[in-house]
């Protein structure tokens, strides 16, 4: 059944919220009263419930099945964490209440910071960034501030970014005025220290490197790269999107990073929610720690304090503020709940299982599907390219869409850009062996069908989904970004 748009079923006079009109009073709006229809139809509560429940039924989530989106880390979202985030003492607290009335909230932030620093081997953390890309921004701002503090602001304006990086990396660097310089990809999928050294110079402010990288590989020369950067007076920004592969196994601080954002919604399982909210705390090395933005929590004489202004920061030199309040408290609670539940042993084990699961898929598919860098161990995600689809008339996209008909969410496709027709599969540690076995069998079956020339199964896919393949070109060519009332039927001229 088709579910209409709210605007097609709602009515201007209907409301699903009862509240009494106020007693008569003299408004004090200074002549600024809104007039005319706002254009917002309402639904009664039963109608609204059904409308959104039915919409949800057109969606696919982790709870529906395997969701192997590489780089996105779709792991189980424990409902304990949802419950904890809704405790009134967390969910119903205002960011500008007197600090004496939010000591527990500040304690939680401090505890979260301690966990993040311990797991990453770093000396500071800026909690407030609202998502991964925002964490990148904060981290790169800290680097810029540190460079400026050394008087090198005018000269160090280049940031090195490998071609395989997430798009957020160059976008972030450009946003605050850095020049982006590419580091080429090598045939083995790794960044080589010689290439970095060749690009280094007195103009280089930093490198932005993802580790494990977007090809699902750990960068084996990372320590040397960090050293080279530091020797050249630059900073090492690490994109932490894939930190989930090594939590409890290795500490980025030990590897030499200066700043790394952590996607709490990936690594520590605060749910993705169809595109957020996330949270992107950024951990900082000792060199960058003084430049962390406000606000931050500090132990004071009579309890925990919140430093909200640069001039209260003591010896620190915060580079400024990146958001109105203290960041994503709701996500902090969920992430800490996840970390407490797993414990140090469980988090280490989770990383191991994530890597094990990815390699198990690799082992199950390696004979049928091609890997761009050869068949070698991967981290938490395994990358295939489309060489094996050559001459089948089936593209990576077709293959992905055919997976939908088998009841699976597709993997990440066409990313990283450096690999032709990339298919990046991340099962996460949340999948059982039985689930992986079924997934592997299904993909093998599909792969053999593609090779056998059953093209229709792919190019027309999906056949069994709430919608057939959607026309994205049309959407972009003549964008319709909002509902508008249908034009009234023209009355016949008299």
């Amino acid at each position, binding site marked *: 059944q088709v579910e209409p748009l*709210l605007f097609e079923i709602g009515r*201007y006079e209907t*409301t*699903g919220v009862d509240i009494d009109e*106020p007693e008569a*009073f003299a*408004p004090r709006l*200074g002549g600024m009263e*809104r007039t005319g229809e706002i254009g917002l139809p309402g*639904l009664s*509560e039963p109608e609204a*419930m059904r409308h959104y429940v039915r*919409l949800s039924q*057109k*969606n696919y*989530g982790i709870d*529906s099945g395997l969701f192997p989106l590489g780089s*996105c880390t*779709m792991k189980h979202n424990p409902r304990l964490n*949802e419950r904890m985030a809704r405790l009134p003492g967390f969910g119903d607290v205002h960011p*500008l*209440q007197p600090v004496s009335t939010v000591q527990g909230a500040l304690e939680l932030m401090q505890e979260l910071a301690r966990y993040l620093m311990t797991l990453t081997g770093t000396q500071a953390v800026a909690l407030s960034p*609202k998502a991964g890309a925002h964490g990148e921004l904060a981290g790169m701002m800290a680097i810029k501030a540190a460079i400026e503090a050394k008087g090198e602001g005018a000269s160090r304006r280049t940031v090195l970014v490998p071609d395989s990086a997430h*798009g957020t990396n160059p976008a*972030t660097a450009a946003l605050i005025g850095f020049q982006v310089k590419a580091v080429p990809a090598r045939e083995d999928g790794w960044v080589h220290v010689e290439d970095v050294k060749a690009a280094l110079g007195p103009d280089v402010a930093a490198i932005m490197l993802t580790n494990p990288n977007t090809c699902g590989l750990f960068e*084996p020369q990372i320590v040397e790269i960090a050293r080279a950067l530091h020797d050249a007076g630059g900073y090492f920004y690490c994109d932490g999107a894939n930190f989930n592969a*090594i939590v409890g196994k290795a*500490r980025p601080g030990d590897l030499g990073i200066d700043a790394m954002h952590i996607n709490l*919604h990936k690594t520590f399982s605060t749910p*993705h929610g*169809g*595109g*957020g909210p996330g949270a992107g705390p950024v951990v900082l090395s000792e060199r960058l720690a003084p430049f962390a933005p406000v606000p931050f929590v500090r132990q004071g004489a009579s309890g925990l304090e919140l430093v909200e*202004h640069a001039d209260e920061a003591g010896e620190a030199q915060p*580079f*400024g503020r990146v958001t109105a309040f203290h960041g994503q*408290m*709701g996500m902090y609670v969920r992430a800490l709940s996840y970390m*407490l539940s*797993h414990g*140090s042993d469980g988090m280490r084990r*989770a990383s191991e*299982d994530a890597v094990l*699961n990815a390699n198990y898929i*690799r*082992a199950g598919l390696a004979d049928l599907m091609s890997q761009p860098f050869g068949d070698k*161990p991967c981290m938490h995600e395994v990358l295939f390219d489309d060489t094996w689809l050559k001459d089948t008339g089936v593209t990576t996209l077709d293959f992905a869409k055919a997976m*939908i008909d088998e009841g699976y969410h597709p993997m990440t496709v066409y990313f990283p850009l450096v690999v032709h027709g990339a298919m990046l599969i991340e099962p996460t*540690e*949340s999948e*059982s*062996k039985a*689930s992986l076995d079924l997934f592997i069998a299904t993909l093998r079956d599909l792969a053999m069908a593609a090779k056998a020339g059953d093209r229709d199964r792919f190019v027309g896919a999906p056949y069994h989904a709430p*919608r*057939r393949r959607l026309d*994205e070109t*049309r959407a972009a060519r003549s*964008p319709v*970004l*909002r509902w508008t009332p249908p034009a009234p039927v023209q009355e016949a001229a008299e």
Partner: protein
Amino acid sequence: MRYLPLSDTDRGEMLARIGVADIDALFADVPKAMLLDGPVDLPRRKSEMEVERILSRMAGRNVAAGSVPFFVGAGAYKHHVPATVDHVIQRSEFLTSYTPYQPEIAQGTLQYLFEFQTQVAALTGMEVANASMYDGSTGTGEAVLMAHRVTKRRKAVLSGGLHPHYAEVVQTLSRMSGDAVVAMPADVMADEDIIGRIDGETSCVVVQTPDVFGNLRDLTAIAEAAHKHGALLIAVFTEVMSLGLVTPPGHMGADIVVGEGQSIGNGLNFGGPYVGLFATRQKYIRQMPGRLCGETVDANGERGFVLTLSTREQHIRRDKATSNICTNSGLCCLAFTIHMTLLGQAGLTRLARVNHANAVKLADMLAGVKGVEVLNGAFFNEFTVRLSRPAAEVVEALAERGVLAGVPVSRLSPGAGLDDLLLVASTEINTDDDRAALVAGLKEVL
């Protein structure tokens, strides 16, 4: 461990299938010296019951807004959110889904984003809206950058009525990008001459209404002046509920309207997650930051929705992108959309009237307290009072008496000489008892 399905037997079988001796063989690329040989120095796993105890204890050390007479605002507001909202956003299919990159199995998310965009456009009185920013403050930063792109200029003028934290976010970003910012001083009485600061270099002027002191502002003249100089007017709001009752910026000539959507559908959450609303004119859509959902058809000709115009975005355009934003506020959009749908304009307008009525009633009561002066002429649900003692002390003293009285201006703008000012917000949650408690408390401590 309850979240990990593999048994040791499974692990052994899987390693054998992969053809390695042990798990660390898969971590061979990690430099040996850096590979930890055991768990880090943090506590071991805990049962659900233990985790609940630890976090409940921390939560118990905070005063929940709903447990006391509560008048704190200044950018985040305590409203009642219907139970339906929280129920629906917790449905697995919404909660555990990803950004809708595979639209065929994400029509649920996409359709509500389309509804959200339409609702935000209607509320703000603009032509189009995007599918959310992180919050109002970061959205304001993005709006300024967008204005720079549109005008090809690099100077923003910020009103002294803009929330100081929003101004700081813009200033931090601009300083880092090398753009110019003119930040006007705190404008308690809404009588600044912002038009006089607009010149041929100005990319945009950023004005908030209701402003941080609660004043409602007519933006028409500012819009005219900005347009005359080739600049854009960016209108900011921190209380979206106001748009149910007061003239929206889109009706006053604003080019970009940006603000905080928390009040509809979302809780206080100690500051986050919230949802930034961002609307503009149709002609600027290719300069907008953030996700956009658009209508299209599928292979059968059926209507469907997709993310669109992604060539603006970082994952395609990289360092030429209109923003670096990726994950945004999906589930908060959903909460907003459901609450807004339940309200409809009939409910929203009534709820906004109740907010205003409660604020008016409170203002009149406070005006009768010795040592309190209400400063605002026109306001929505928040206003500024001048106290006979530093506001921070008064707030602390009332907190000890179990009343959360508001936000001292000195907390937002220390050193601005405004230590005697208090921002007081009142919404539909406030009862006669709440108001009486605040009045009684003030009489005690002033």
